[in-house]
């Protein structure tokens, strides 16, 4: 049976789309048939981050409305096997995502995919509620910053009360914390919430810490999910995150400052 994972946060601009793109890519790279859906109706973005914007013909809402079938709308990734993208509609009709329509599309996807990743829009309105409603698991993307942490907590409340699993009394949506845009040196200085602070407040298991990194912007410029950038810290952190999601136990990297002394630098040659 396929697993539906929502990438959510409440707050905008925290790294949901960046995470969705890299997470889905990582699952597909590891051999799992994966579809990633952009739920941000009216503000399509995932296609750009995945570098397939010029291949969009039909979208999610076209499929819901029966104007195209799923195979016509799904974009097969050219670089990674097993990876498919379902782009968001640019319609301004916020009612376009109906619960029945979303359910129909997800049910169809679940027949041929192992993982379905739902990239949620910001906010707690219809699009965000639809993205999380059918989820089995949730990646809650949070920045080490007050408003992001508070919004994540609200989203956790919604997952626990308004998801289908909650409404039907099924086992709850499995929650994972993704702490993104983390700057260890600032946390060490005490002017940014630390990993421990955020964990203590939100109280859900940590799946991964993604460092603040220039490479994220560069890779989005190029339309390449950052997980595909060899040698980048953010890419490596996403790689670890995917492995952990799939059950590996790995230590968290990039969460402490590398204080290299003169001698150490001399001997490590960097």
């Amino acid at each position: 049976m396929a697993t539906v994972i929502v990438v959510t946060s409440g707050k905008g601009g925290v790294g949901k789309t960046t995470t969705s793109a890299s997470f889905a890519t990582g699952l597909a790279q590891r051999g799992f048939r994966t579809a990633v859906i952009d739920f941000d109706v009216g503000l399509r973005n995932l296609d750009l981050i995945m570098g397939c914007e010029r291949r969009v013909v039909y979208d999610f809402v076209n499929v819901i409305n029966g104007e195209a079938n799923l195979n016509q709308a799904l974009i097969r990734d050219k670089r990674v096997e097993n990876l498919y993208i379902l782009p968001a509609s640019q319609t301004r009709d916020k009612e376009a995502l109906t619960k029945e329509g979303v359910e129909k599309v997800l049910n169809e996807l679940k027949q041929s995919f192992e993982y379905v990743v739902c990239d949620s829009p910001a906010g707690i309105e219809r699009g965000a509620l639809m993205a999380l409603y059918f989820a089995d698991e949730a990646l809650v993307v949070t920045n080490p910053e007050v408003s992001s942490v508070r919004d994540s907590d609200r989203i956790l409340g919604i997952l626990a009360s308004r998801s289908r699993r909650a409404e039907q009394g099924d086992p709850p949506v499995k929650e994972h914390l993704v702490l993104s845009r983390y700057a260890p040196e600032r946390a060490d200085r005490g002017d940014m919430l630390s990993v421990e602070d955020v964990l203590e407040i939100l109280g859900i298991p940590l799946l991964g810490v993604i460092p603040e990194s220039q490479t994220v912007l560069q890779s989005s410029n190029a339309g390449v999910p950052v997980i595909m950038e060899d040698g980048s810290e953010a890419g490596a952190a996403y790689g670890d995150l995917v492995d952990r999601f799939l059950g590996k136990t790995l230590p968290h990297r990039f969460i402490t400052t590398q204080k290299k002394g003169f001698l150490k630098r001399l001997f490590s040659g960097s």
Partner: protein
Amino acid sequence: MGLFESLFRTSSSNKSAALAKERLQIIVAHERGSRRGSPDYLPALKKELLEVVRKYVPVDQSQIKVHLDREGGYEILELNITLPDEEQRYGRD
């Protein structure tokens, strides 16, 4: 700005993460409380239940306990009514 003051400023800005954490703990606890606290219909429910039960058995307010619990994804509404001895016997056949 004197040396003393600037020293003070630096140290207080160093604590901004601690301040953020403290503020978050308060607001999050507050919001969780209103989100997960007992629903506002409980007192009315309790009163009406009491009225129904009283049609059949004389009980008073203190003998009825309504309790809402959450366990995992479930909500359990627990209703406890202590019946007076005689009435209890009377109710059986």
